[in-house]
């Protein structure tokens, strides 16, 4: 993944109702044209009217999803290799998830033993450490798969990729910022990466929400405490672009996380430490400059199990 140099990053809450992305742009003093990424909406990425209206400035939609489809249609060899990589990543994800579930189950079994509380606390630390190790190993495996793909297929040197990157560079020329909407996080991550959209727009400010905000963190963490099949465990999807360092970004946290389960919250926060687990609920806003949080209006899941309101960007 591209590790862009320090730039201003603004993360927002959901924009579906009462969007505030326009005011975020205004606060940054941006009144000119911005580049828009809607690739998370996949086939619906061109349906940008509501977002364009909310932005309130001229917009150029980069249409990364459509570009990827066009690229794959015209470069069968690359498409097959790309699909094979994605298939491998999906399988790795599924194996990692099995390991996570079993490790989590073991931790819970140990936690209810009738033994000395001090020993239980030590064991609990080990349980959390095992989850962290699984997360770390998974991220490394994903990175290795991506590196092997890039080494073998050198996307940046393929004419089909170069053509789109050239076009995109022209398209974003003169834009003042890049705005990344939410949607399907894996799809978004892959297309931003494929076309180096963040590299092409550096060092312009980045404004993002939903999946768009997630991919800017060091790691993309999937989470949902109310899945239709009953229960699940949060899992690392892959590395993010690192523009919002030391944060785990949780869009719509109030709807998706069982915040009254203090034991689980504490465990999750400790598992993700030193990254701070922040919720991007309606009205949330966090500003990062030169890799530091300079302004925040978000809730954080604390290692104590509490949900801290009004987190200011200090780690503990």
């Amino acid at each position, binding site marked *: 993944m591209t590790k862009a140099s320090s730039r201003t990053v603004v993360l927002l809450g*959901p924009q*579906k109702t009462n969007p505030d992305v326009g005011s975020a742009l205004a606060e940054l003093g941006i009144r000119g044209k911005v580049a828009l990424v809607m690739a*998370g909406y996949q086939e619906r990425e061109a349906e940008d009217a509501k977002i364009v209206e909310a932005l309130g400035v001229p917009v150029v939609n980069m249409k990364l999803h459509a570009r990827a489809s066009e690229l794959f249609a015209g470069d069968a060899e690359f498409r097959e290799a790309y699909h094979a990589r994605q298939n491998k990543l999906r399988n790795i994800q599924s194996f990692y998830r*099995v390991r996570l579930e079993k490790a989590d189950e073991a931790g819970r079994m140990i936690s209810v033993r009738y033994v000395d509380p001090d020993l239980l606390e030590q064991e609990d630390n080990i349980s959390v450490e095992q989850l962290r190790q699984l997360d770390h190993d998974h991220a490394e495996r994903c990175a290795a798969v991506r590196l092997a793909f890039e080494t073998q297929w050198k996307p940046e040197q393929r004419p089909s990729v170069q053509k789109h990157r050239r076009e995109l560079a022209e398209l974003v020329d003169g834009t003042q910022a890049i705005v990344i*909407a*939410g*949607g*399907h*996080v*894996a*799809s978004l991550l892959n297309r931003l990466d494929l076309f180096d959209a963040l590299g092409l727009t550096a060092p312009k400010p980045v404004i993002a929400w*939903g*999946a768009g905000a*997630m991919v800017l963190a060091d790691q993309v963490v*999937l989470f*949902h405490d109310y*899945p*239709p*099949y*009953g229960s*699940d465990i949060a899992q690392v*999807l892959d590395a993010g672009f690192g523009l919002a360092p030391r944060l785990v970004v949780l*869009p*719509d946290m109030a709807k998706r996380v069982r915040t009254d389960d203090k034991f689980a919250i504490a465990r999750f926060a400790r598992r993700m430490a030193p990254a701070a687990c922040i919720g991007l609920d309606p009205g949330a806003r966090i500003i990062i400059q030169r890799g530091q949080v300079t302004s925040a209006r978000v809730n954080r899941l604390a290692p104590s199990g509490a949900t801290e309101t009004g987190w200011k960007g200090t780690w503990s």
Partner: protein
Amino acid sequence: MSPSSKTGPIKPLAITALEGGPRTKDAIDTFFKKHTFPIVEGSYVTVVWRGQADAVHLKHWVFGLPSSQQLKRVDTTDVWYLTLQIPANSRVEYKLEVVRDGKGQWIQDPLNGSYARDPFGANSVAHGSGYQVPSWIHHDPESVPGRVDEIMFDSKTFGRRGFGVYLPARFQPSRRHPLLVVHDGHDYMRYASLGTVLDNLIHRLEVADVVVVLTSSPNRLGEYADDERHARFLTEELVPYVERVFQLDAQPQSRALMGASFGAVAPLSPAARYPGFYGRLLLQSGSFAFTDIGDRNHRGPLFDPVVAFVNRYRSDPEPVSERVFVSCGTYESLIYENRSFVPVLASTGMDVRYVEARDGHNWENWRDRLREGLSWLMPGPFLHVYE
């Protein structure tokens, strides 16, 4: 009978109050106007029938309770009733038998507007406290319905056969959709609202954009009972044909088989005969009859090949798929077989999820478990979408 309460005074049941009198016509008419039937009061469910009869019986299929129970007549009236204790979240299907002149007639409860259809007709339904009909079984105006076609197919094994195909609203040949084959699929559509359920769950992103094949065998009790021809038909003919025609994602992880009752043996048997071909199995209230000693079973000769198959599998369990979702109602006679089969399946290393519900061997029980089962076996992108 009066319900006890830990938090307040004991309140008599509605029927007890009626019995307490006065039992005038006006009082009885008021009673019927005032209540919906059956009357649910906490864990007590009172079934009521009004009319002239020699006897009235409640007929139900709750394993563990007498299948026929006599209603009591409120003295000097034409009101009959029976109060049962039904645990919270239960669903019970029943009929009434009205006996006149020595002849019994089975009827739906005329006071109860809730009923469930099945291939044999319809039963009245009593919901215990807390049970809610899932919202996702009703048409969601925001969801776009899939398309259902009927296709004729020439099989070397079974000759010319028809099957249904559900194509999700977002179907595109270039997208490599997964495949779900549903045994007794047309009955699932009719009695378990499968089409609407798929439309809704796919729309909610909870289930993948799956192509669904609906099969209906003319000889299900024969073919589903570990018949080698059924496994060959599915695995060597039908599935490859559908995967080719609709350009599906021809991988084990993208192939699921599903069924209920005998129709749940139907997926397991091909999976066992072709291990590694089907990556997902959804088995509802499976007729997994077995014997611990000898080969005599109490369910009759139709079950003999099933018992032989299940006994064989239990003695030498092997992983035959990757993920298996098993569900069963606690009011079914098959609960014993299913409960004891789950650890056998899990012992092979397959990822097994088992769900019980306070329900019987019926289509609405199977309908109510579809969300959990399908979203786990063939999840849609809900975990990946953050708008």
